[in-house]
């Protein structure tokens, strides 16, 4: 998947992290925060991005059968704004009913079902691609004002 398009320029700050256990969760948060500060995101915007990333990393640890996935974090510039974009992907079982998973209150694992809809509300841009057997990829992006 290409992350480049006409309006966007990737900077050299890309980070890719494996997500397999709790220790990785802390690394994902730290990396997101560092990129957000670099991109000049405000404190609230940064906290929302890191919280969203924390939710997605936990989902990978909890749901992906292999229990592992990867996040790739990039800083992008689209004048005059900058953003942090994070792509979370795993090769787990995938989500059977994506529409249901994006509704508040839906959960298959006995949790509160806040995960995906809540995560979407935290960031400026959110997209998800998933199907049974194909794993799940979630892209989140937060812009500086």
């Amino acid at each position, binding site marked *: 998947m290409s992350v480049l398009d006409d309006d966007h320029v990737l900077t050299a700050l890309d980070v890719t992290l494996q997500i397999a256990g709790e220790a990785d969760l802390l690394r994902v948060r730290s990396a997101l925060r560092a990129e957000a500060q670099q991109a000049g995101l405000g404190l609230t915007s940064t906290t929302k991005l890191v919280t969203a990333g924390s939710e997605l990393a936990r989902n990978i640890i909890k749901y992906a059968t292999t229990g592992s996935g990867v996040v790739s974090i990039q800083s992008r510039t689209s004048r005059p704004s900058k953003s942090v974009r994070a792509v979370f992907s795993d090769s787990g079982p995938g989500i059977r009913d994506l529409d249901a998973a994006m509704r508040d209150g839906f959960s298959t694992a006995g949790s509160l079902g806040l995960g995906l809809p*809540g995560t979407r509300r935290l960031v400026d841009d959110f997209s998800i691609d998933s199907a049974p057997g194909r794993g799940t990829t979630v892209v989140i992006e937060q812009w500086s004002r």
Partner: protein
Amino acid sequence: MPDAIPIIRLGASLLVTLSGDLVDSSVEQVEREVAREVAATGAAGVLIDVSGLWVVDSYVARVIARLVAMIRLLGADTAIVGIQPPVAIALVELGVPMTGVQTALNAEQGMARLRGLRDERVG
């Protein structure tokens, strides 16, 4: 390894400080230590200071709700104090239901809140 959880006695209350990154391994330790201290001191109230938490995701929010429920079973009231403004905003957007949990801006107001709860019950 998680550090020891700071628990300080303040009159009839305990002050528990959560900080850094709360992970599964430290959660169990927090619950054990808080339960033991509440039982040992017969505390009437517990202040949980979360001003040191810069990220509270739904998992950590559930941990806090569990602590409050556990303390209630031990007969004490709880007030969560020091939620950082960006954390409050993120929690609301995330849709975490923190209803039924007493909160206050800081430890001083939290103490007043706990005293109010006690007086209500006695009076």
